[in-house]
């Protein structure tokens, strides 16, 4: 636990820019502050610059411009082997000629730590690798190798631990288990973790704060809840979960302060969107709603759901996933919307394809995005 008297050792990136010699700009003037002790995720599709950012923090990539600080210490031009930072590499990069214990001891040995043997023992216990200590990396399973990579970095008690897609090589089941384990270890050791991933579920399960990155810039940053419920760009709306985006025209404002709302006309229906969920100044906008926030009812049945109602939608396909069902609905204005429904059994069965349904949503779940943005942004990565 950081003492109140000690200065905070937050990781701060200011105007961080990376341009490769071939002219490709991977990271564009990135500003980021990661509080000490937090679990931070950089989420984005491949090629968005998240790994380059991580490598610049590690010192494995030169910085074109901008600065990297840990607390007051400027590490922008520091050699990688002098930074208080360690990395868990995507393919683990374990030394094949060394045993597990020797791999883990590599860092402390280079730094001339006295009680390295005791520390190796402790960290192998924490990562449940005591029995593998004498083996070579090639003799271990993927999950075990992953834990060695983690132990080898953690033993140095870095101020910032960088994780580059650390679970990417594991199968789904192991990945889920390791997500919980990583989170647990982070809470136990209390270090700053910066986790790079393209897996939105992984980022959301583990991180306190997620930054969604796209084409070298951070599109939005916040808690997983904030990002999911109130995305600010079409990219975030599509990359993190799924979104229905419908064209609307701003017709006016009402209320003030916390109650302020924007009125949007959407094919004849007036939608009232809270001001803090409106992310455009223009007259036009994308009205966004998450698929599970769409409620459907057989046409004509009495509905007491509050919010906006639309009749005359047709179910054009349904896929049953067990816990839920995904419906594709054709709206009266011709657009197709996705709807996820929990299979709670209230209706006593699935809605048949071709059935006419009434659709409703609560207006407090709706968000308004800039119409100049691509409604399909972020879809290919999801």
């Amino acid at each position, binding site marked *: 636990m950081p003492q109140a008297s000690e200065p905070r050792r937050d990781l701060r990136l200011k105007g961080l820019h990376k341009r490769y010699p071939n002219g490709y700009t991977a990271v564009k003037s990135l500003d980021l502050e990661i509080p000490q002790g937090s679990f931070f995720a950089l989420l984005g599709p491949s090629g968005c610059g998240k790994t380059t950012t991580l490598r610049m923090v590690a010192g494995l990539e030169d910085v074109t411009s901008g600065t990297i600080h840990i607390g007051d210490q400027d590490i922008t031009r520091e050699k990688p082997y*002098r930074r208080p*930072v360690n990395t868990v590499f995507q393919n683990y990069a374990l030394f094949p000629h060394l045993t597990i214990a020797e791999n883990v001891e590599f860092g402390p040995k280079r730094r001339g730590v006295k009680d390295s043997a005791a520390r190796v023992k402790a960290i192998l216990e924490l990562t449940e690798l005591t029995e593998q200590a004498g083996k070579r990396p090639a003799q271990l399973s993927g999950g075990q190798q992953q834990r060695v990579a983690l132990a080898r*970095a953690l033993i140095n008690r870095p101020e910032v631990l960088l994780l580059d897609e650390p679970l990417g090589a594991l199968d789904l089941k192991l990945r889920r288990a390791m997500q919980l384990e990583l989170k647990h270890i982070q809470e136990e050791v209390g270090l700053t973790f910066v986790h790079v991933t393209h897996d939105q579920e992984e980022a959301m399960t583990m991180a306190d704060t997620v930054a969604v990155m796209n084409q070298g810039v951070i599109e939005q940053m916040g808690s997983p809840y904030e990002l999911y419920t109130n995305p600010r760009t079409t990219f975030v709306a599509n990359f993190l979960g799924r979104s229905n985006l419908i064209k609307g025209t701003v017709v006016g404002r009402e209320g003030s302060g916390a109650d302020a709302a924007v009125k949007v006309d959407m094919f004849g229906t007036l939608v009232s969107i809270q001001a803090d969920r409106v992310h455009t100044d223009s007259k036009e906008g994308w009205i966004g709603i998450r698929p599970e926030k769409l409620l459907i009812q057989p046409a004509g049945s009495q509905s007491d759901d509050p919010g906006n109602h639309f009749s005359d939608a047709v179910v054009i396909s349904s896929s049953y996933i067990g816990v839920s069902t995904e419906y594709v609905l054709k709206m009266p204005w011709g657009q197709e919307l996705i709807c996820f429904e929990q299979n709670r059994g209230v209706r006593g069965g699935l809605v048949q394809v071709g059935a006419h349904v009434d659709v409703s949503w609560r207006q407090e779940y709706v968000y308004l995005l800039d119409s100049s943005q691509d409604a399909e942004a972020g879809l290919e990565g999801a």
Partner: protein
Amino acid sequence: MTTMQRVFGKNAAYWLIGPAALWLGLFFLVPMLSLLTTSLSDPAGSPIYGYDLTWRVQNYVEALGDYWPYLVRSLIYAGIATALCLVLGYVLAYAIAFKAGRWKTVMLVLVIAPFFTSFLVRTLSWKLILADNGWVVNTLQWLHVMSPDGRLLATPFAVVAGLTYNFLPFMILPLYASLEKIEPHLIEAAQDLYASPWKGFLNVTWKLSIPGVVGGTLLTFIPASGDYINAAFLGNPNTQMVGNKIQALFTTGGDYPHAAALSVILMVLIVAMVMVYVRRAGTEELL
């Protein structure tokens, strides 16, 4: 059932090993037995009328007693040439593996290119380069690096230089093969774990290239210590190696038993040295 089993039946393995075993038996085992028996025969015979196998161990004592300076000189020259090859070869193999980029293939071809001309011709051309009136000696004399009557040809320097030149590719190729396999991520990981570039090289790159180092030094040292062409063309009577002596005993001397004994001594010596070396390098799996 594999395809091989279908074609060759149950004893597929024997059929497949067969040709190579036959080849080795005919061209390695038989000559080896012939060499051993000759080395224990009475030197009173002649190459034309043959030698009587009299189990004359004395041949070995005499060969060793008369020619041990040649053996020592061979090992020293081959040792120096191997060390020079290792230093030159490692730098080049490292550059090809990690720094050459798109020039990698071109550089590898250049390393192998000398093989397209004969060993003999290449060594003879060194004779021209190092000649007393050649441009190298003239330049060095003009620069006063060498005395006016100094020479390069027919010196130990020329012999070792020739050996180094001729066996360098045998060092580079195994080194390159093992360096090229090293994941660049491992070197980054070493840096990330507080190893300076030099420490990272020693602890990761060098350690992982040891199979190449062992392979390369063996491929250089073994043929270099038995070589006689370099000493014959580039040396003088006082720089003769054991290979020259064996060759002389076989051809001009007509003394097959002593030549054979000297060959066996050289072989046993090298095998013993290789075994100690490989065990100490911790690369037994190479044997």
